[in-house]
């Protein structure tokens, strides 16, 4: 029998998974104390014909609080159909995406072999500064969808309004939860302590006495249809 190949592939796959588990020692993905784009957002994420969307992003900074910034540059990816190449433009209000008319969208659907009511994905290459941070961002043209609303967030079992100051105990597991669609992807991030189960709707954060005792807490909710929402707090351990 000559089918050890799939076995080898599976074993190799397991190796990769285990290897992936080995990396977080150096650079955990929940760490806000880095220069990186946490999430980019188009408002709205799905545009009907003729509608316009604006773009911004939640950006983390090393040694500084997060910011919400517009992009310094946006362009369509090289694989974009020519009919959609002019959908992105910069104006006084910043970079915007404007969906073309219904006839253009129908033509693109036909050329891309999409169903008549199917949204058309448009891949944008967005740059945020001043340190150039490049993001690939897919929005959709031809239907209407809004970004998700981030529901009630409980920190230590207590509801917390966004953009407020939260005090948590030192050297204790502090539970975090968010009221979001179960199908949505959730990511918790912090620059204070260690985050556990950071990709679960319910997570917990632990601040040791040796950690920085103040920082930020954020949660990002990504809907399956491409919409995104976030909330953030300043946090202090006592």
């Amino acid at each position, binding site marked *: 029998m000559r*089918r*050890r190949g799939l076995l080898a592939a599976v074993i190799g796959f397991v190796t990769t998974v285990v290897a992936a588990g080995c990396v977080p020692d150096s650079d955990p993905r929940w760490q806000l104390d880095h220069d990186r784009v946490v999430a980019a957002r188009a408002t709205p994420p799905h545009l009907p014909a003729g509608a316009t969307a604006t773009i911004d992003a939640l950006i983390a900074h090393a040694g500084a609080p997060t910011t919400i910034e517009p992009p310094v540059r946006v362009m369509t990816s090289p694989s974009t159909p020519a009919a959609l190449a002019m959908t992105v433009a910069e104006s006084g209000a910043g970079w915007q995406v404007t969906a073309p008319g219904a006839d253009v969208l129908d033509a693109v659907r036909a050329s891309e072999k999409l169903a008549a009511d199917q949204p058309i994905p448009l891949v944008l290459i967005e740059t945020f500064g001043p340190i150039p941070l490049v993001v690939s*961002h897919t929005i959709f043209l031809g239907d209407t969808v809004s970004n998700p609303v981030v529901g009630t967030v409980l920190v230590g079992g207590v509801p917390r309004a966004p953009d407020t100051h939260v005090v948590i105990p030192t050297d204790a597991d502090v539970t975090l939860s968010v009221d979001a669609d179960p199908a949505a992807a959730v990511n918790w991030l912090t620059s204070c302590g260690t985050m556990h189960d950071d990709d679960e709707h319910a997570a917990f954060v632990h601040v040791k006495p040796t950690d920085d005792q103040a920082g930020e807490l954020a949660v990002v909710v990504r809907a399956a249809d491409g919409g995104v929402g976030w909330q953030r707090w300043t946090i202090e351990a006592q």
Partner: protein
Amino acid sequence: MLRSMLRASLILVVLVATHVRVARAQPSPPPEPPPAAAPGGPVSLNIQGRVIDTLGHAVAGATISVEGTSLVAITDADGRYQLAGVPLGASLVVDAAGYTTGLGTVSGAAVTDIVLLTEQQASEVIDVHGDLPPASPGAAKLERTEMTRIPGTGGDLVRTLSIMPGVVAPSGPALGRNGIVIRGSAPQDSKLLIDGFEVPLLYHTIGQRAIVPTEAIDKLDYLPGGFGVEYGYAASGVVALTTRAGDDRRSEQGEVSVIDGGLIAQGGAGARVRYMVAFRRSLIDLLLPYVLPSSLDLSLTSVPRYYDEQGRVDVKLSPAWSLAISTIGSDDLLELYFDKAENPDKRLYSRTRFLRLTTSARWHDGPWSATLATSGLAQEIDFELGTLQRGLMDTLAWTTRGELTRSLDELAGLTGVVWRAGSEFVLGHQHLTLALPQLPREGQPMGMFDPKDTSTRFDGAVWTPDVAQWTALTANLAPGIRATMGVRIDEFTRGGDVAVQPRGELTWQLDDRLKLRLSAGAYRRPPENRDEPLHAALEPERSTQTIAGLEYEPVAGVRMQTSAYYTDRSHLITRDGRGVLGNDGRGTTYGTEVLGTLRRGPWFVWLAGTLSHSTRVDFPGAGRRLFDYDQPININAAMSWKRGKWQLGGRFELYSGMPTTPVLGAVFDTNANRYDPIYGETNSERLPLHHQLDVRVDRSWTWGSMLMTGFLDIQNVYLNDTVTNYTYSYDYAKRLAFTGLPIIPSIGLRGVL
């Protein structure tokens, strides 16, 4: 963190690993009366005693020497000896052909019987050879007793293979590789056979422990290329294990270590039947939970657990007919959660088990001989990650093979003629349930792991009926020149491919000490690796091998062989830019291998060196790149010295690091919350050069009636921190190096009753 855990546990295991093996033979030697009381003070004695085997039979012609003196005696037909003027407390060293060295202590005038073990009883390793003489240029021969003398191999099959010329040394974590890389080929290009039929794995999923204990192995054939027409479905080399038929005499033995424990029993039932059964189970899964730090955010359900079993019955039906029935199986299980709460989304489950049952009948009558064998395989591979990703493969396969051989002293002016013809039918049924990410091909980096990626989906069955015929003629063309010409025809029925593969070999005895060997042939590997069975239009991969070799034995005990090879590969299965598999790849491998051995007196020296270069072109017009397993330099040098109760040895290995593809940067995909790497040129970088020194000391002594052997085996004595792989942070901003284990001391103890 997991890396630290794995390292810590492995180091712990090897540090505390103490192998204890006890063998018992039936019937036991009769009990002896206690030795005569020794006189006080430093005195010399006239002693007498007896040397026997484990059945109590006398060993005649054994040499007894008194350590530290020139006193020597030879046993008579009854195994008895006498020596005069032997210091009280002196050690006796007993050597006899076919037996391992025996030891005794002078505690009185009457010395307790010294029991010798046969080499087969005592050996914990296997005989490794390619044939005598080697079956193809480049094959190697290593005697069973010499295996115990090479440090760093531990007598295990997997590590033994790594010192062979042409074998690419493993790089990367022990977890994650199965199969063997020979002469710049992929693991799936070489066959792993046990008792003539392929097995899905050679060693257990974790730990690089062979699925067959050494005690159950009779021999291992290593054919790096140029193999004969009787082997098919491989484009590179063959590793063929033969299980042990069992001794005429009944014996049982057990072995236990921190890694695993097992039993083996063998013997005869009447004059015509011999049997061997063996069973082994891992123990590390029982111990690991107690040694892991509680701070680890990890839950171990079974890490790892394995069983393996072997059985064989040989029956001599008549002077012309013999029958062998053998079975081999293994079961590997790994299950863990990447958090203590045992969240199903963070579960990793992997189970691989198989059972093969083989029946082989041999017939021999004068110049005619024949073999008819049939074998069945049941195999399951089950892999689950989280709640979304799964790969389940159930396989049932049945193979029937027959071969007829006719020998002729002379035919049409040719002498020493041997004609062979054979046929094989394989019927395989495979049911696949797949929900996995797209599996990368050779040359493609794995990329960042996405637990939600199930882009490769399939649920269905695949039938693979394959038929093969072959014939070959071997004859002396002239004095000193012997040639083999043959052809193998494979019909891979599922794809409708018929492959005609001519193969030949020429041996020219240039003088008494020098032999030239030439070999050439065509080889095929059917498209049955990874997800290839899902694509019926794929054709077999092809290779054409050309090998030339020289063998030189300048003096007795010294042997040198060298070979040069060139392999052209075509129809390699690659994935194009759209993700579609096709036979668009090409490749070449060339290299040279040198093997020198010295066996003289107490010395044993092994020097193997390989220079090779292996490249691929993925599709017409693409650039030539290095093969994933290209290893230009591979050198293994081992030396040991054995005297009386002591044996000292050392091994040095040096090999090139594997090619690797650099990551130049990454783009954040905000929808998927994932960084997509930007890769540089494929395999344009290489891991650092690896070098390592291992040393080993063995010491034997007697303890009551038990012969004890202890050893200290230290791998990587000068702490070379070898980089075995690179991995990246989630955003590819940092590259981290996986390094090999630092110093690995291992203490072993074996007792034989």
